């Protein structure tokens, strides 16, 4: 039986919709349930519910054969996994945001302080153009950091931009487009590739069905 790691959080709803189109009916209100492992579909598939940033870990170590992970946490984790499908769900952007008029340039006023849940991606983004920044890693509510003076800017995901606006922030720079990826473990692909490939094919058909519905 295949094991698939699914992220709790913002991706869970669209992932469940996609899986349901593919024939894996996961109960609604998953968030309220305490069970972290359940089986669904035919042939039965085991679904493991973990924190979004843990999905690449479970898949890289082969505890889960496959998983659904946002490109943000996937890149941040540097996990060595296969990523054959862009699932086109959970679309958003990874951006640098700050107060209107905030400069990102190196202007001699010292090092730019950047608060983020993605310390590695942030460092990479600024280093790529030779800018040294002070990265301040946070676990959540990153939008608060500029207001409270913890950081000058933030690097975070933006869907509609409403959360940013409510906290008096604007997008200063776009780092990349983010969406959920179907990821696979290399070893499991060598050991039970047929099974994994069948599931991948069913998912890409489900993606087509989802596109038609829109």
């Amino acid at each position, binding site marked *: 039986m295949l094991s698939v790691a699914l992220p709790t959080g913002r991706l869970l709803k669209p992932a469940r919709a996609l899986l349901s189109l593919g024939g894996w009916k996961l109960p609604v209100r998953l968030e309220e349930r305490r069970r972290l492992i359940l089986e669904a579909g035919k042939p039965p598939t085991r679904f493991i519910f973990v924190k979004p940033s843990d999905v690449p870990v479970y898949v890289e170590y082969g505890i889960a054969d496959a998983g659904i992970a946002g490109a943000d946490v996937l890149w941040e984790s540097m996990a060595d996994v296969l990523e054959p499908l862009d699932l086109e769900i959970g679309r958003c952007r990874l951006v640098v945001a700050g107060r209107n008029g905030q400069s990102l340039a190196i202007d001699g006023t010292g090092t730019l302080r950047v608060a983020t849940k993605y310390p590695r991606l942030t460092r990479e983004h600024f280093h790529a153009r030779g800018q040294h920044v002070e990265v301040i890693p946070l676990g959540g509510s990153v939008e608060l950091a500029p207001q409270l003076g913890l950081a000058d800017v933030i690097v975070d995901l933006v869907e509609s931009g409403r959360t940013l606006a409510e906290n008096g922030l604007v997008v200063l720079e776009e780092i990349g487009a983010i969406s959920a990826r179907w990821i696979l473990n290399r070893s499991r692909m*060598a050991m039970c590739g047929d099974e994994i490939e069948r599931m991948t094919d069913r998912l890409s058909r489900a993606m087509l069905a989802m596109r038609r519905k829109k």
Partner: protein
Amino acid sequence: MVRNTRSRLLQRVPSGVQHYGLAEVRRRRAVEAALTASLRGWSYEEVILPILDYEEVFRRSVGDRSNGRMYRLIDPEGHVVGVRPDLTPLVAKLVATGLRGERLPIRVFYSGEVVRPQGPKTLGQGEFHQIGFEQVGGDSSPADLEIAVVALEALRAAGLISARMMLGHSGILPALVRKAGLRPETTSEVERSIDRHRHQGLEAALSRACVATPLKRVFRALMRRTRRPQDLAALGKQAGSTVERCLLELRRLWEDLQDLGYGDQVGVDLAEVGGFGYYTGVRFRVYANGVGFAVGGGGRYDKLLEHFGSAQPAVGFSFGLDRLLRALEATGVTPATASVPARAVRSPGHSRVGALEQALDLRRRGKRVRLC
């Protein structure tokens, strides 16, 4: 305060390295012994390699200095040396220099640790025990087949029968890249996309580089799963003679392994393009249930020895002992670690000499004793 820090350090293990004792050592040595006995049985002879060598020796393993994949030290004469992150270049150097003049082909094996600084990603292990074997000189295709068979048989000797070997070829992608005339930036994007099966990424990179459709199809086909040796032939026709030759090599190797009865244990994955930079031909990677990573790997490296002054073709394979142990554990195989029970020798009265006399007598007859 100073004393406190010092004594804390004395009880701590530096990050990335580890020590083992008692039962764990018995377990590790039992698997090591099974593998090396199997290798000796195929006439591979042990070599002992230096723990350090000049950084240049490892350049093809780790790339240039900036990527930080090796510990570097300054030796007393001021040369930069590396703590061995890979053993194959040391074998290549030994064969090309110290063993120059020996009859070819030379078959050697080694068993020892490599050290790799932990990247930004993991806080885990940085010291790995590898058991590997290499064949230098000799005809390529029989040597490739021999290495594959010896690897699979060594695994069987260690108790891992469910392993699966994926074959690949390091010559294919570079030939395709040359044929398509890709620039370096595009090349690395194409390589990364293929390595991670990123279909959309590959498509975008190839379109931007205006690669012709028939050739695009070949790039795409590398990520497809190859089920039968015949499928490889179909791919070659559109891809040029170099690719065709590589595919033929792979096909023959695969068919030979099938004929030998390894059909269920062998497959082909043309998308495995990662690994050390010195590989030039057939590639091997072995996977097992219970471990998310390859338990062993290797390949042909025909250009490595010439850097050490003796151009010879070579092919090799190495097992990662830690991952192998995990795979064995997952499949429920416990290495036979039981030793002969020791005879307890007690001193009669208070005579220490008496006890030792008895023990010496037993030892000289080959018995295991334990003084009480």
